[in-house]
């Protein structure tokens, strides 16, 4: 199917666009070992936003992959993960900030390095949010697509290096008209001492019609189906 939109997000880059329901957002880890920080907001009412705890407890999972949904803080869905060749995506570890990047990778300014200077995910998020009238109060724990972090029984976390192979793709079927904010910065627990973010390809397709009887995500858990119904009810009132 011919994409509606294709764009490469450079390593350390940032992107924010409204992607409406009826479209599928494909994110591709071009080189392998990428991390893509992501947040979702209701485009019409951005006080409704991605909610890490509801996403995890609603599906009794610590990691995200095909069959899972991305839940809002209002009992609704932003997107359904309808396909995933990476296998594990993190959403509990947050993102890098200026202090972490400076302490881990050293300081590299624009004056010194021009556009190869060291960026961090928190500042990138705030830049993009600012363009939509949003700011610090709207920043909440994010998704880290393509990153695998495992917990032992005591809760100690280990980042799995290069968990995502080159060409890995995750397809997000949009269930809500969403402001999607992305930044391709390293995962905060990535032990690599070198500043080495990776590029991401962003592709948007029209979504095929959904069959609620057989749909992977709606049938994976009753919580997802109820959140999907809440989302449909929301749009039946707005339309």
């Amino acid at each position, binding site marked *: 199917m011919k994409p509606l939109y294709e764009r490469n997000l450079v390593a350390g880059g940032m992107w924010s666009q409204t992607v409406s329901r009826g479209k599928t957002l494909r994110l591709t880890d071009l080189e392998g070992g990428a991390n893509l920080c992501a947040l979702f907001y209701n485009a019409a009412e951005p*006080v409704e936003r991605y*909610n*890490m*705890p*509801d996403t*995890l*407890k*609603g599906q*009794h*999972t*610590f*990691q995200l992959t095909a069959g899972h949904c991305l*839940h809002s*803080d*209002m*009992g*609704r869905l932003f997107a359904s993960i309808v396909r995933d060749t990476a296998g*594990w995506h993190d959403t*509990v*570890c*947050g*993102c890098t*900030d200026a*202090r*972490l990047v400076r302490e881990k990778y050293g300081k590299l300014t624009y004056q010194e390095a021009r556009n190869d200077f060291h960026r961090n995910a928190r500042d990138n998020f705030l830049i993009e949010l600012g363009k939509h009238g949003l*700011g*610090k*109060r*709207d*920043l*909440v*724990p*994010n998704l880290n697509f393509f990153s695998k972090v*495992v*917990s*032992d*029984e*005591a*809760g*100690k*976390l280990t980042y799995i290096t290069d968990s995502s192979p080159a060409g890995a793709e995750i397809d997000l079927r949009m269930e809500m008209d969403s402001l999607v904010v992305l930044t391709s910065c390293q995962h*905060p*627990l990535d032990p690599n001492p070198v500043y080495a973010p990776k590029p991401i390809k962003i592709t948007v397709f029209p979504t095929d019609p959904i069959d609620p009887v057989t749909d992977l995500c709606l049938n994976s858990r009753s*919580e997802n189906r*109820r*959140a999907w*119904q*809440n989302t449909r009810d929301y749009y039946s009132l707005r339309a």
Partner: protein
Amino acid sequence: MSEVIYRKVIEAGDHWVHLIRQGQRFRIVDLEGNQAADTLFYDAHDPSERYAADVTIRTQGALYLTTGSVLMSTEGNALLTIIDDTCGRHDTLGGACSRESNTMRYDFDREPMHACRDSFLCGVHGWGHGLGKRDITCNINFFMNVPVTPEGGLTFADGLSAPGRHVEMRAERDVIALISNCPQLNNPCNAYNPTPVEVLIWD
């Protein structure tokens, strides 16, 4: 031993907002056991800087909160440090219940039931300064046990807490504490029986 300067019992379903000054010690007591004290912290002088579950987790490289855990802010600063814990493990992944999420988690007919995020809203509205829903973020669930498996599962297990167990923190800066003493009646982790907690502050 310094004197207790403040103590109050927070009944189940109530919210509580209070200033804790830098250097003061703040204790929450699980009076009857396995109650969830849903808690948020804000910098008292700039509430746009607030507790951050993700920064706390990535800073300690671990999921659960206990003695030694530093509760971090969105700006990467220490808000409080847990200095004593007779429960052993506290959750910061499970978030707070809401009327909306209750419809997702349990059933549509649970929507009218009282929930933590309504209490949080009452709390920030009462505190003032124009705060609202934007300021309600992922919280701590003191006394809750939400174990994660190495395979990536997440469950709500029986609590590790028991009557009289407590957690105590030292404030590293002036903070506002906001507690919703959880009214959830649909979750076995509190034996379907929300109960009071007590808060104490020492200088």
